[in-house]
């Protein structure tokens, strides 16, 4: 199938899944703090499209999009949100800690920046094994405040480790803007001083993000240097939770409206239409995805909880 459609399907799945969360979360059955992906779909879909099934990703507590883009497994996703026995993690992880290694989703962590060095080690192991697997590590702009980010960048460049760093920059760490956290003006300019490939973009055109990532991967294959991708996007909802928070006073609704007018999901849909895609065909795909989401959430709601003994399984002893 064509690239544009594939990208759209990934983003549509993510957006609709989260809209479904918004609908059902108030029932208080998904007892896990939700850090929503809305707004970042194009970054995750574009990058994941350029990876193969065996390539590996590491995420943060804001990883709904990444999990769905890499695994496509909305069934497992909802089962975990409801903490049910049918989920691979059986409720040990929840929204902030997902894992599906068989699809290359190697984990997500709720301690900011903590998975960056782990991704680096995983990439080192792949390099040693000579298996050509690429590792991509996703993190927010806040993560780049942490020392471990800079240490990991340095080590990756020093050891020429094949890894893609993806900074999803929404300008905020919780409610604190970058201007109140950084003693410099441009992150990509600083990273460019390292021996690595730096590429950047404004992240609502998914095809462009895909192309940028492919370019990065090609460079990395050629010059053996890590890739740093910097994409700006806008977080639609509050830091954690399912609501908007423009009344809180730390950011302006006008800014949101600006970004919403170039919303990644609708933008790609219009792209497809103006490239001659049949609207009916798109709607059919959308209906299929809608149905899959609906079945998944219903299955999750009806599934049993695991037995309490599960608490003690898989503890390192």
């Amino acid at each position, binding site marked *: 199938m064509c690239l544009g459609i594939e990208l759209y399907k990934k983003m549509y799945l993510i957006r609709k899944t989260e809209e479904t969360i918004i609908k059902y979360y108030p029932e208080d059955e998904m007892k896990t703090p939700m850090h929503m992906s809305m707004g970042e779909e194009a970054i995750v879909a574009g990058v994941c499209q350029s990876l193969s099934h065996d390539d590996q990703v590491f995420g943060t507590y804001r990883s709904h999009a990444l999990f769905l883009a890499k695994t496509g497994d909305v069934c497992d996703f909802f089962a975990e949100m409801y903490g049910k026995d049918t989920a691979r993690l*059986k409720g040990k992880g929840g*929204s902030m800690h997902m894992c599906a290694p068989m699809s290359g989703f190697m984990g997500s962590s*709720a*301690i900011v920046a903590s998975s960056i060095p782990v991704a680096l080690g995983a990439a080192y192991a792949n390099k040693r094994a000579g298996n050509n697997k690429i590792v991509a590590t996703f993190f927010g702009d806040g*993560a780049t405040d942490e*020392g471990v980010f800079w240490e990991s960048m340095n080590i990756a460049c020093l050891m020429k480790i094949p890894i893609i760093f993806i900074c999803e920059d929404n300008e905020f760490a919780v409610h604190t803007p970058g201007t109140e956290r950084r003693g410099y003006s441009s992150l990509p300019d600083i990273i460019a001083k390292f021996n690595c490939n730096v590429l950047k973009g404004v992240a609502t055109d998914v095809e462009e993000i895909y192309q940028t990532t492919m370019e990065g991967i090609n460079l990395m294959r050629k010059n053996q240097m890590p890739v740093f991708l910097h994409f700006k996007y806008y977080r639609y909802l509050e830091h954690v939770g399912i609501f908007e928070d423009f009344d809180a006073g730390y950011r302006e609704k006008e800014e949101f409206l600006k970004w919403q007018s170039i919303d990644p999901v609708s933008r790609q849909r219009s792209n497809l239409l103006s490239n001659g895609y049949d609207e009916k065909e798109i709607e059919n795909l959308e209906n299929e995805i809608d149905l899959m989401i609906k079945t998944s959430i219903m299955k999750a709601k009806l599934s049993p909880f695991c037995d309490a003994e599960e608490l003690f399984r898989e503890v390192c002893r």
Partner: protein
Amino acid sequence: MRQITYCDAINEAMLQEMERDPQIFVYGLGVPDHKRIFGSTKGLVEIFGKDRCFDMPLSEDAMSGFGLGAAINGMKPVYIHIRADFLLLCMNQLANMISSYRYSSNGMLKAPMVIRVIMGRGWGQGHQHSKSLYSMFSHIPGLKVVLPTTPYDAKGLLISAIRDEDPVLVFEHRWLYWQTGEVPEKSYTIPFGQPNVLRTGKDITIVATSWMNVESVKAADILEKRGISVEIIDPRTIAPFNVEPIINSVNKTGHCIVADNDWVEYGFSAEAAALIYSKCMGNLKSPIARIGFAFTPCPTARHLENAFYPNAINIIRCIEEKLDLSPTDLTGEDFYSHENRFKGPF
């Protein structure tokens, strides 16, 4: 007397102390944002300005050393973390620098800083947002560790912590924020090493920390209906830990349970039990029991979370075993959950 919440008691302590001493400043992630650390830092930035109340980059370790540097140069930093788990990023400064600066300068320099930490729980916080960790810090000579339970303690102990000449970590349980209690408006201190007897009794002694005091009181209320009288002692500070009043109590009751808001293994409950044994051996009618979290990382699903955390029921069953009682009928009893929080006074 006036009743206010635990959260407001902390806030009032901060306000009054910052008013008193211009060397005090408060900082940490989100400290001046609109959520104001669950409300506990409200008003501070408006009154004292950005120089004395500020946000920071996500640089926990560096900002710990920063606090130390300011402290040895005469300031009084109050550094806040909304989760105890984030303290692990500060471990080097805390354990290698802050704890030992006074000692290694042979007293020529002191580090009077306060680290306020909130322990999370519930709603699927999971293994990275729910740790207690206070025992780890109590293990390190040079760090004082304070665990306020009541709103009265929250204000008095925080003021003592701020006025202390050494580094103090104050661990606040998230679920305690909502409870109310009597708190004097004027400023006051509570000396460290002064346990609080929450309830006197003659049949069994419970040593409880932080939230586990709430569960212990619940258990005691239920058993009181059967004529069982439970003594509950909250050490309030575990470093320094004054075990004397506990020893007197156990020598009187002959039974002891340590109910800790943490894992049992290698924690405060082990330290407490060892000290109690050393002084009460001959008077104990049963071995000291310890109650704490299941020895696993904290899961997120509610039923697993419930299996992870101990509550009043575990305490009741433990008391029944010690006192050789038949199981109490608990039908109709209400227990605390994320939805059904403790709000009233003790």
